[in-house]
């Protein structure tokens, strides 16, 4: 009976301490540019430009490749799949496609003998 009581208490404690998963995932330090081929922005000058991101970046860590002197063009990261790019007069937004996930389904090995 004592064992049963302890078991019930343990199960009840597990149910109580189980917390729901947060609805919003935390923002990663590095934003994956994988799968992102281009982005647009309208802020500042010129009015619109399209380019290809060259590196992973986080907030404040990106310099526009075509305008390296315009260091005010910082991506403002609000979630992993949404970017606001801009500076000066304002920001524009771009939502890149979510990169698909791939699963390894075949493995093998290669043994190379140099002779």
């Amino acid at each position, binding site marked *: *009976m004592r064992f049963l009581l302890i078991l019930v208490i343990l199960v009840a404690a597990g149910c109580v301490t189980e917390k729901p998963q947060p609805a919003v995932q935390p923002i990663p330090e590095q934003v994956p540019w994988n799968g992102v081929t281009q982005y647009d922005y309208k802020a500042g000058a010129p009015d619109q430009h399209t380019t290809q991101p060259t590196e992973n970046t986080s907030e404040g860590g990106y310099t526009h490749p075509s305008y390296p002197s315009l260091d005010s063009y910082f991506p403002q990261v609000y979630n992993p799949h949404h970017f606001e790019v801009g500076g000066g007069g304002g920001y524009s937004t771009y939502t890149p496609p979510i990169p*698909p996930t*791939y*699963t*390894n*389904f*075949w*493995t*093998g*090995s*290669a*043994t*190379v*003998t*140099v*002779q």
Partner: protein
Amino acid sequence: MKYLILTILAITAIMLPTTGAMAATEFWTGTAAVTVSDPVAISNTGGDGTYDPGTHAWAVSIVGGGTKTLKMTATNSSTSAYTVIPSVSPASSTDGKITAVWSNATGKYIAAGATWEYTLTVTSTADAPLGTYGFTLGFSK
């Protein structure tokens, strides 16, 4: 405690089927074996050296400054298209003198029912040290 046991017994009794009215005699038995296979199969379709299809192990000898290849084909036997990505790790020996590179390394979109051949090219520099180098191969989709 006694009340709890009685309650459990009562619930169990209620949930029991009325076997007397539904009794049936089994007159046929059989078995069913269902094999779920991957929709994309990888097979060896050529190249140098020897390839063991059982262990997916490729062994090849190479001379300094030489190049050897392994050809693997992905067959999509499903009704859906897949992007199949080959991988090799490491991409080179620690001194960089033996390199292994897949064709279509960023992936190839293979339509339903289609096939695609990938080529792994292993290259040795002329001054590569003699020895054996291991690589891990993979395919993702």
